[in-house]
């Protein structure tokens, strides 16, 4: 059970007897910089009109950023794979939920009375 940690420990250069991976400073700074650049990129990308592609680009960049955070800031790269499975499973279930709800609401949309909201104040 402890094998993976002793390996991880051995991998960490500045390691001082701890059981978990210590992320090198260089990596942390690089990730931070990348996140900032990607943020600028998202804001810039929206300025270009690409129709519905804009949404997908924004989501792709966000996912890239999120992966960086998860992999390095949250140590998932060095962690037990099962923790990653747990997290990814959660994401999959969110996607499942969102996509079926979207699929269905899209399909019944024509039956709705457009703009119906009688309870809103004038």
């Amino acid at each position, binding site marked *: *059970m402890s094998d993976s940690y002793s390996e991880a420990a051995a991998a960490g250069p500045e390691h001082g007897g*701890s059981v978990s991976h*210590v992320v090198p400073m260089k990596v*942390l700074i690089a990730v*931070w910089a990348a*996140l900032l650049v990607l943020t600028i990129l998202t804001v810039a990308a929206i300025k270009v009109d690409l129709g519905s592609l*804009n949404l997908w680009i924004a989501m792709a960049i966000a996912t890239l950023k999120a992966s960086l955070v998860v992999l390095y800031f*949250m140590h998932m790269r060095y962690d037990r794979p099962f923790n990653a499975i*747990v*997290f990814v499973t959660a994401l999959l279930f969110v996607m499942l939920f969102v996509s079926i709800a979207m699929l269905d609401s899209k399909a019944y949309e024509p039956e709705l009375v457009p703009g119906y909201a009688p309870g809103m104040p004038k």
Partner: protein
Amino acid sequence: MSAEHHDAHLAHHFDTPIQQLESGKLGMWIFLSTEILLFGGLFCAYAVYRSNHPEIFVYAHRFLDTRLGAINTVILIGSSFTMAWAVRCAQLGKQKALVVLLGVTILCACGFLGIKAVEYEHKWKDGLLWGKRYKAKTEHGAHAPAAKAKGLLPPTAKVNPEVKSLIPLPAEAPHGLAAPGHAARAEHAAMEAPKNVQTFFSIYFLMTGLHGIHVIAGMVVLSWMLLRAIRGEFGPAYYTPVDLAGLYWHVVDLIWIYLFPLLYLIH
């Protein structure tokens, strides 16, 4: 190798500190997964309304201040960075740096909330609020939303001659029936306020509000960590709490990474 150090923190039902640390981590990851699913509900509401009513989102997102949103994004990313750094310091036993970094992280959180408060206040002033409270001032170009119509379907509906259907004539129908078709609606969005703009603001406040609550919870946890760090409880032999608090804080950041483009950057 330093089993004696661990022992003070080793609960009686674990055999080894590693087992305990791993259990804590797994537990935290499971908890984070539940957080993702919690937000998942709101993302679902967002996705459903956005895909069915893009015009509302295109129209209403302009009332959000992209600049402030972007600044907040940078702040949160920065706090994530200092947090990750803090964990590193705890692992390496750099006591002072740990305290400073935790402090900076908390300050970033305060900054984030401060800016959020400014944004909320603007919305409040302009009546750009959720659901029933939505009452946009006309100078912002937002018309009052759908008028109130009681007695929705008058019992005496007449046959609609155009489509040979009993679905009532627009004039008699619930308010909004007369609205143009789906495709046309998106076109119009640029010019005038579409129906049900309040939906956007409901979602905006729900998502940012729930996220804000998580930021506050994170600040409480981090303050506690700061206190314990000042007392010198953490070191290479024992830093699990900092590590777990860090994981939580990163998830708060993670969610904002998605909220920012979804709410502020709509095309």
